Structure formats: C-alpha cells, structure tokens
C-alpha cells in the first residue's frame, strides 16, 4: 500500500532555529496531512493540505505540497523545546480510503 516516507528521520536543532522535514509518496492523492506525536501519546493533527493546494500556513507551521514531485515539506519556524516530538505525514490516495502514515521524523529541540 502507498505510504509517505519522511526525510530526514532524526533532527536535532537549537531552540529558535527552523526545522524542515520532507515527505514523499508514491501515488496520486486526495490530500496530505501532518501529525505530531509526543512520546507515549497519541497523534495530534497539525495541518491538512489538499491536492489542489500548494502551500498552507498555520501559526509557526508551513506546509508545501508538490504533486508533480509527489512530495511535501513541513517547516516549523522559531522552534521551541515543546516542539520536540515525532512528526508524521499521512496520505489518502485516489480510490483508496485508507490513511497511510510514514515512518516519522524525530525532532529534538535543545533549549
């Protein structure tokens, strides 16, 4: 089944820096979503971008989607220690209602 794959998988940055992570997928999609997961907790929805959108902002988050390259990026600006978490992209492909998650990016923000 089609699945997003994040790159890089582990990122360690200083507080205040920006964090960028990428996600690629294999088939045509309806939309792409990003989720955050703190250790030992469930996933929290961050942002949804539809296949006809190219960029979306939500607070310190910026998501881009390039359907021609089948890729998306998540940028967290001015990172905070509380942003330390794993970040997952998830996609729903055409003709398949299954929401498929990638392996995740672990982000550590050092105070």
């Amino acid at each position: 089944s089609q699945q997003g794959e994040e790159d890089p998988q582990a990122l360690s940055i200083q507080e205040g820096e920006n964090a960028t992570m990428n996600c690629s997928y294999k088939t045509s999609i309806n939309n792409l979503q990003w989720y955050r997961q703190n250790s030992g907790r469930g996933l929290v929805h961050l942002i949804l971008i539809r296949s006809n959108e190219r960029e979306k902002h939500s607070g310190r988050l910026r998501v881009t989607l390039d359907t021609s390259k089948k890729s998306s990026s998540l940028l967290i600006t001015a990172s905070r220690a509380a942003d330390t978490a794993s970040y997952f992209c998830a996609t729903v492909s055409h003709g398949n209602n299954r929401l498929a998650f990638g392996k995740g990016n672990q982000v550590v923000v050092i105070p």
Partner: protein
Amino acid sequence: GAGVSQSPRYKVAKRGQDVALRCDPISGHVSLFWYQQALGQGPEFLTYFQNEAQLDKSGLPSDRFFAERPEGSVSTLKIQRTQQEDSAVYLCASSLGTGQGDSPLHFGNGTRLTVT
C-alpha cells in the same frame, strides 16, 4: 467527552491469552479507526467503522483480530490467543467525516500491549 479515551493504558498478557481493548470516541464522531504502531514506526491501519458498520477490515493481520462497534459509539478491539508479535501500541482515532482522509483524525493515547 473531551477527547478519544482508550483503556487500559497498558496491558500485559501471557502468550495465548485473549485481550480486549476499548475505545471511547468523541461524541458524535461518525468514523472510528484502529491502528497498530510498532516501536519507532508509523501507525499501521487495522480497521475502519462508519457508525456501527465495519467498512474496512483489510488491515487486520490475522483472524485472531476482531473489532466491533455495536451501537456506533464505543469500540472494542479483541485479540485472541495473543502472540509476541502482537506487542505494540494500539491507537484508536475518530473523525467527524465519513472518509478516511477528508477530516482530521483525533487520536487516543493508545493501549500499549506487551505479550510475554
């Protein structure tokens, strides 16, 4: 309730035992999903309910796994004759929409199952 609630939070089972994991979704949410998450991996889809109807169970790894949502609200995931490879975190999610991708999923904190 305020969010998706799962119980128990932790479950240790001896190999061969049956377990039942409960999920209380957000009130009014039509869709309910179960995912399995191995350590260091992303969640893997198990099954999907729309109200009480189980519309997709293609992710269930074997016939030892069974899920139900008889009244379209609370759901139970049952695993019979547990095996060590069943050890994982089982996540439940609900959403207001009727598709798997048209509205955000709200996740519970999961049940960590350890089979010894």
